[in-house]
């Protein structure tokens, strides 16, 4: 131990210790906070006479809310009051007549939530002044003065890939979400306005690539059915920006100017889900001399000391060598199996078990997964790599069997990565490549047990 010439005071030593210790990054802290807030709070005490939103109550179509409407004043593009909305809203609410919408105007990122508030009353000047960020998404002053027929809906949107471990707290739902699925979130200690209780409800959902939390605040603890219906009409105008396969790259959803605030230009339909994702695509390979692809198979490796977790998942994939240049992306595809996904410090958890480049286009050709006639073996844990000479276009079939239904979705984390991926726990997968004339190039399989196998045709040789 160090023995300084003069004794040091304990306070100084501890202060030095405090400043000498590292701390988690802001990103890690945000992730931890989100992991915490995704947990449900203890059940609140029962709500007097109305515990939840009944389907019966919702089913009653109400009267117009003209009397409760007060138009908000503009806050630049952040605020979209009735009748004036003509800006892109990304993820958030499109205002229905008589409603005012306040939102961040951007989609959620891995770093930051997107927030949106919709209300059928005038926003309190303090909430105006703070804007949505400064108010932490909660227009508190507005809530304190919320009239009996007033409604405030607060939406929080988080990118799912930034917190996939929270999926269990966000059930898969489709747009439009339903107010009747919301649960009461009232308890004495966090009632916004104990002296004149609000009706407070919460709805959680996974919508496409987003986790969504909606807080409903009603001016009365016992809202009339027509108030619920009005909230539902606004909820029908919730947009969660997502892109699904087969759609044009339409960019963020926008609000039509005519008829104003009533039409969502781009609200994708959710594709059908299935336990088996099986795609055959045709991929153009970059020119080369010779033109070739790289095929890789790697058996999984368990973590030393914890056999229930993976150090490396079993996986098979192919890539166009030009894909190594980020500015000139080639095509690639791959499947993996095994669970749970590998956690890497500082890297968002990747839960896709099947992926392929969007540049590969769907094909109706038949590609067999049979390995007969092809030499091959179980792949090593360090990866077996082969270079295969191929023509300008190849047919690729990728197939994964999942434990729960899933679907292909667009994954575009950077300018240079643009893929369709299927996420979830995969039992097994396969990748088969052949030429358009029918010559097999490679067939590879993976299984959740950790084993990957690779069989290659005569055009392939071990990578140098």
């Amino acid at each position, binding site marked *: 131990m160090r023995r300084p010439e003069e004794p040091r005071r304990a306070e100084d030593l*501890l202060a030095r210790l405090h400043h000498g210790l590292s701390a988690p*990054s*802001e*990103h890690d802290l945000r992730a931890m*906070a989100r992991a915490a807030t995704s947990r449900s*709070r203890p059940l609140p005490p029962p709500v007097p006479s109305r515990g939840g939103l009944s389907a019966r109550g919702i089913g009653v179509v109400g009267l117009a809310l003209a009397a409760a409407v007060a138009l908000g004043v503009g806050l630049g593009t952040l605020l979209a009051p009735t009748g004036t909305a003509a800006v892109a809203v990304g993820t958030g609410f499109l205002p229905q007549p008589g409603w005012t919408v306040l939102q961040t105007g951007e989609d959620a990122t*891995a770093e930051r939530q997107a927030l949106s508030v919709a209300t059928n009353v005038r926003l309190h000047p303090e909430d105006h002044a703070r804007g949505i960020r400064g108010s932490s998404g909660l227009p508190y002053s507005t809530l304190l003065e919320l009239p009996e027929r007033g409604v405030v809906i607060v939406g929080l949107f988080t990118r799912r890939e930034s917190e996939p471990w929270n999926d269990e707290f966000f059930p898969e739902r489709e747009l439009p979400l339903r107010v009747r699925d919301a649960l009461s979130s009232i308890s004495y*200690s*966090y009632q916004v306005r104990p002296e004149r209780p609000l009706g407070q409800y919460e709805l959680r959902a996974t919508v496409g690539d987003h986790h969504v939390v909606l807080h409903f605040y009603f001016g009365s603890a016992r809202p009339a059915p027509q108030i619920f219906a009005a909230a539902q009409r606004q909820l029908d105008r919730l947009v969660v920006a997502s892109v699904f396969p087969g759609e044009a790259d339409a960019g963020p959803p926008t609000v039509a100017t005519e008829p104003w605030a009533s039409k969502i230009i781009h609200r994708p339909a959710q594709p059908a889900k299935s336990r088996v994702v099986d795609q055959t695509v045709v991929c153009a390979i970059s020119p080369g001399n010779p033109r070739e692809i790289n095929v890789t198979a790697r058996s999984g490796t368990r973590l030393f000391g914890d056999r229930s977790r993976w150090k490396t998942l079993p996986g098979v994939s192919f890539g166009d060598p030009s894909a190594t240049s980020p500015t000139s992306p080639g095509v690639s595809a791959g499947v993996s199996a095994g669970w749970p996904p590998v956690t890497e410090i*500082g890297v968002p958890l990747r839960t896709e078990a099947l992926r392929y480049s969007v540049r590969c286009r769907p094909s109706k050709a038949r590609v067999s997964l049979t390995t007969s006639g092809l030499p091959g073996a179980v792949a090593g844990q360090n990866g077996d790599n082969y270079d295969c000479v191929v023509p300008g276009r190849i047919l690729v079939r990728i197939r994964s069997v999942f434990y729960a239904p899933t679907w292909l979705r667009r994954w575009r984390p950077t300018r240079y990565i643009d893929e369709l991926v299927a996420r979830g726990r995969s039992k097994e997968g396969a990748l088969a490549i052949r030429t358009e004339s029918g010559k097999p190039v490679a067939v590879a399989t993976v299984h959740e047990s950790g084993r990957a196998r690779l069989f290659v045709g005569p055009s392939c040789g071990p990578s140098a």
Partner: protein
Amino acid sequence: MPNLDPSAERTPISARAELGEPELVRRAQLGSSAAFEQLVLARGPQVYRYFAVRLVDEASARDALQETLIAAWQGLPRLRDGSRFWPWLCGIAAHKATDAARGRSHAPLHDAQAVEPDEDGILDVRAALAALPEHFREVLLLRHLLGLSEAEVAGLLDVRLGTVKSRANRARKALEELLR
């Protein structure tokens, strides 16, 4: 697999807390996860450092911090006075640290990944702290690493104020003696 290190996109914390902590607490109690996130950004590093010293290794400190944040989120509605958030959070942290430390021996200091190169004798201080009796160490950490008052420490440990003062005094002397 692409490198998606999100640290490249870090945003400054400076945008934090136009609102005071009691107001953020209030909003978090009402269900604002954004407000809770701001509280975590402001207070999380300090709590983490406390865990890093008490539990020695980084992984345990992170786990304990995560458990503390979950407990805090779930327990916030029961916090009556928002201005007491910090000592309340420290109380949760202290209990989580006790739970985590129970039954485990102190790891060797060379495993302490959270420590920077020992230019300021930090390892010495940590070694000395580790050598202190548990009740001495706890008082020192709560007072000087988490910044609680003696009265708050007394309330948290459920002992009398005089006991805290006595322990703190003896702990300081013991620490200085160990590092002499």
